[in-house]
């Protein structure tokens, strides 16, 4: 299953890059994508895909607009701090434990923290411990509980 899916993805990527549809190109693309997925088919789709994954993708797509908006805000924040003559920064390091369990959820939360205003993930491990470097002290230092709640919602009923 994972073999077939990986080779389909690889072949689509090949077609996208080649942009031409002659016989020799399609044949070599087919051979090389089969070869690549023979070597590494357990990397891309590690476990079987079931229905909950589709739900998760759907939830993630609904999460994206909020994330994009946060990216825009954080960029204006960075621009303000970098261009201000006195450079209003007061960095500190915050530790907390998110109660996420799955690797995917932790990865999404870490990248979201990096992209939201004022905070960058310094360390995250598989137990859900996070170390965050924040550019301001005080209330804003801890990355909002709402990010965690949102990511937890994406993760949903994960059976790992």
């Amino acid at each position, binding site marked *: 299953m994972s073999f077939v899916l990986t080779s389909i993805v690889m072949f689509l990527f090949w077609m*996208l*890059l080649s*942009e031409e549809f002659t016989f020799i190109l399609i044949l070599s693309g087919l051979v090389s994508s089969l070869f690549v997925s023979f070597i590494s088919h357990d990397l891309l789709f590690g476990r079987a895909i079931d229905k909950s994954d589709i739900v998760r993708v759907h939830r993630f797509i609904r999460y994206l607009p909020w994330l994009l908006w946060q*990216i*825009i805000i*954080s*960029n204006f924040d*960075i*621009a303000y*701090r*970098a*261009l201000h003559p006195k*450079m209003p*920064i*007061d*960095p*500190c*390091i915050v530790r907390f434990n998110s109660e996420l369990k799955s690797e995917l959820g932790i990865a999404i939360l*870490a*990248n979201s923290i*990096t*992209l939201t205003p*004022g905070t*960058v*993930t*310094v*360390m*995250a491990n598989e137990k859900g411990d996070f*170390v965050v*470097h924040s*550019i301001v002290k005080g209330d804003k230092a801890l990355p909002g509980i709402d990010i965690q709640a949102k990511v937890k919602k994406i993760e949903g009923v994960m059976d790992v």
Partner: protein
Amino acid sequence: MDIRTIVSGVFLFTGCFFMFVASIGIIRFPDFYSRIHPAGKGDTMGQAMVLIGLMIYEGFSFVSLKLLIIVIFILIANPTATHALANAAYVAGLKPWKKGDKR
């Protein structure tokens, strides 16, 4: 000058502005951890903006599909790379800069 060129130009120059600001931030900020902030955010978004501007200019074709793939890859990879860098510095025991230390 049709409307599409104008929109793509706006995207292009907003992206350029943010990339430039990220560079200034990387130069001005006092320590490694705070330099990660502009590198992780400003660059990611500036680059996405410029490439989206190019996508709008190009219209729908293979080229804009490739641009879309680059944008998605960078939105995933750039925060991961900065996070990995920060992790390496943290493991090495680098102390963060506090307010009041000298620059």
